[in-house]
């Protein structure tokens, strides 16, 4: 099967027009020693119906979130996607366009991103936002790089309540870019304020705290903020569960300088973790330091002076500034940003708040139920949003396997990232779990214990 429309006859005619007899003449610049004189060792071509059968077979080997009852969060959250979102996001004019370099024929994408930037500001309570970044982890890194500055050798202080994957990515970049990272331990599931106070010094470039943190616990950001700001550090709030912003104070409310995080779960399928949707919002003063694309409103040069939208402040970016750019990012996550924009428009002011409360209430119901099953106990006594930690008497691997047999994907195994938390599970309950789902889980947990 092929999407090449020109037939051999077409191609022959084109070659003749150029005075050539064969295609081979056009490959002359590729020297013989590097020519591949054998077919690539790949499976043979398949026709569409056969390929569909193959891919559906592979997809069928997976237990998806519609066929299982899932209590996984740990950085990515299963939120319902209204039908209207997918239908509009998949319009091919959005899907098949490139980065909007020619604004006159890209107004749709540019305006949608301008709306996205606005909505990110609305939910985070900050002044400005960029057009998206790869994912929450790389968005956090970009915030750290912004704070450290070009050629800087500053230090980033980060709470161990931040998603362990995000911290791993930060360490990876920090090694290459040569800045130091200091991790602040937790105490009873929350960032240890005394340790934080000790870690933050005059040379600290950024202080990063996640809200709610990786354990779902709600950090006291109003107590953290003065510590973060006691020097000249940039205070960065990481948000992996944006539904929490319907209920919890916004980063702007607690005087964060920058908010970064993950918006994939708003309107985009979880898709085994990618493509994701990193965001960055900040106070106005960081505008010229922001990484990535920014869309701005302007007017026509002449004519009716209609409003229009363009990519702007591009002198920050790699294609202009090259080695002095604020970031190397080029391709970002525009189509996912369109999905999140339509999602937030569809939920609206009221729906966004309701979503926030649904997750909160359902998680608290599940918490009470699970911790009443013998053999399962709460690990922390902190306030939490829609995730919480439970210690299991039964080894986690065994528990997970038995739950899968019962059609349930249990919580995230915290022992994987926190060795001291062996046999602890991070349960997530979003609005997509019903009371019946939770009751089925409770019964399964009782059976495992029995």
């Amino acid at each position, binding site marked *: 099967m092929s999407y090449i429309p020109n037939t051999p006859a077409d191609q022959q005619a084109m070659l003749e*027009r*150029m005075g050539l007899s064969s*295609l081979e003449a*056009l*490959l002359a*610049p*590729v020297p013989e020693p*590097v020519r591949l004189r054998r077919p*690539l060792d*790949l499976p043979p*071509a398949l026709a569409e119906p056969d390929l*569909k059968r*193959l891919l559906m*077979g*592979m*997809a069928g080997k*997976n237990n998806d*979130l519609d066929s299982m009852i899932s209590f996984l969060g740990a950085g*990515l959250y299963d939120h319902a996607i209204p039908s209207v979102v997918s239908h509009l996001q998949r*319009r091919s*004019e*959005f*899907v*098949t366009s*490139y980065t*909007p370099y020619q604004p*006159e024929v890209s*107004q749709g994408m540019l*305006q949608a991103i301008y709306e996205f930037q*606005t909505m990110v500001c*609305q939910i985070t309570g900050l002044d400005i936002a960029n057009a998206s970044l*790869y994912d929450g982890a790389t968005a956090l890194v970009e915030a750290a790089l912004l704070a450290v500055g*070009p050629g800087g050798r500053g230090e980033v202080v980060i709470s161990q309540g931040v998603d362990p994957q995000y911290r*791993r*990515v930060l360490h990876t970049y920090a090694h*290459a*870019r040569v800045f130091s990272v200091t991790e602040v331990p937790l105490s009873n599931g929350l960032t240890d304020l005394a340790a934080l106070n000790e870690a933050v010094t005059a040379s600290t470039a950024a202080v990063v705290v996640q809200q709610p943190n990786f354990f779902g616990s709600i950090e006291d950001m109003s107590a953290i903020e003065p510590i973060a700001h006691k020097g000249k550090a940039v205070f960065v709030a990481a948000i992996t569960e944006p539904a929490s*912003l319907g209920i919890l104070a916004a980063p702007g409310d607690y005087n964060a300088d920058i908010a970064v995080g993950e918006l994939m779960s708003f309107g985009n399928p979880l*898709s*085994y*973790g*990618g493509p994701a949707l990193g965001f960055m919002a900040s106070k106005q003063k960081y505008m010229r330091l922001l990484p990535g694309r920014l869309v701005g409103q*302007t007017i026509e*040069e002449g004519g009716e002076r209609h409003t229009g939208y363009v990519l*702007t402040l*591009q002198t920050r970016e790699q294609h*202009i500034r*090259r*080695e002095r*750019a604020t970031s*190397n990012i080029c*391709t*970002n996550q525009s189509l996912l940003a369109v999905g999140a924009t339509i999602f937030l428009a569809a939920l609206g*002011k*009221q729906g*966004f708040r309701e979503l926030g409360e649904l997750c909160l*209430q359902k998680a608290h*119901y599940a918490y009470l139920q699970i911790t009443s099953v013998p053999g399962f106990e709460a690990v922390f006594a902190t306030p939490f949003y829609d995730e919480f930690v439970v210690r299991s008497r039964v080894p986690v691997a065994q528990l997970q396997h038995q739950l899968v047999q019962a059609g349930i994907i249990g919580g995230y195994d915290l022992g994987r990232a926190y060795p001291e938390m062996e046999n602890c599970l991070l349960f997530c309950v979003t609005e997509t779990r019903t*009371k019946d789902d*939770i009751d089925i889980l409770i019964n399964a947990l009782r059976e495992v214990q029995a």
Partner: protein
Amino acid sequence: MSSAEQLIFEKGAPGRRAATMTAMDVPTQPLESMIPPNMLRKEAAPLPEVSEIEVVRHYTHLSQRNFGVDTGFYPLGSCTMKYNPKLNEDMAALPGFARLHPMQPDETVQGAIQLIYELEHYLAEISGMERVTLQPSAGAHGELTGLMLIKAYHESQGQGHRNLVLIPDNAHGTNPASATLADYKAVEVKTDPATGGIEMAHLRALLDAYAGDVAAIMMTNPNTLGLFDSNIVAIANMVHEAGGQLYYDGANANAVLGITRPGDMGFDVVHFNLHKTCSTPHGGGGPGSGPIGVKSHLVPFLPGPLPAKSEQGYYWQDAGPQSIGKMRANNGNFGVLVRAYTYIRTYGPDGLLHVAQSAILNANYVKHELAADYEIAYPLTCQHEFIATAERQKEESGVTALDIAKRILDFGMYAPTIYFPLIVHEAMMIEPTETETRETLDYFVSVMHQIAEESRTNPEIVKTAPHTTPVGRLDQALAARKPNLRWTPGQEATH
């Protein structure tokens, strides 16, 4: 010209809504009993209040104000705007792929890991590399990953002091930006004006001058001039002898499928842009996917985990002790990978070769047909793209590449990449791709001929273009001088 579309924030009315929420089917508790009062949100986020029909009309209108490959010809150089098969979209949307959580136990995602495992092997074969990580999110992310691998390798060899990366002056801007991010200093290598390839004497001089400090060279081959650097074997030998590694920017890999392989050219690291070469849609600027392939000496440094297979099935294997770590959360842009997998299985080995050959033929055909009206920057056999210029038009009537690009829009086509590469004045970088019919190419040529005519006889129509688009030329200077990056209530409507 139609007027501007209102913003979603300017539509609707208090109390309106589209999506309805699931039932609150659990016993509830007062918010204050669950959340400390100082951490409660005081004011609701001021999101739009619109009905479903308003949401649908609004975003439908926006889509109609946007141009994609499905709308028409998109000869945007170095971006490989080929047709994005609908089948691939359907496959990525299968619930068995789209509705997976990355933390699911391996036993519940055997098909997903299998797909990743097999795709890695396909890409390794296509590029001539030992292993491939599918983790990087886009080309620039892949570049950074590759440079980190090179850095880790040098450190392991006691060569951690190497701090320079050689980059040709026609390279993509991401190359030097990625080098900086990896704490390398970018050093520019000149282009040979005769061949369009690397100026060998300059490369020799740089390698001699910076002996022992060169960590790598980053190259695109064919390069951004659309020219294959025939000296590649000599270049590889020179850089390797100087202790440097060779990095292949795969942005232009559409031209080499089945014809030659970066690994065989001598490259140590290669990144793919699956959103170019494997035709996954660009989505208005993303998502992309930038897998990295490496030769065996770099395998221990790859970010983890990597897919593996045992008698029990597929599983994720943690990275070894020398791994650079992790480049992002989770394991890559899986949805993009499903599309790329489908694409490769659609074409098979002969088909992929035909893709590259046809892309090269189409580019050379358009170059041949435009040569009467426009200067061709390097009038040589090109590969997947070439650079025409507006030098002649600028001299004759002051019509620039920008003007010509805007005028093309009036004819229902997107514009070429302009003013890039930076070393060519008034550059128009044209990449037709293999998925265009001869008729479309001929139409583009006829439009370009007409614009060349207009530039002589009626340059004003070109200089004031576009005339038929949803908006006319926009004031970029104003946008940068008075940045307005978000809507605020009461913001003056300018339309």
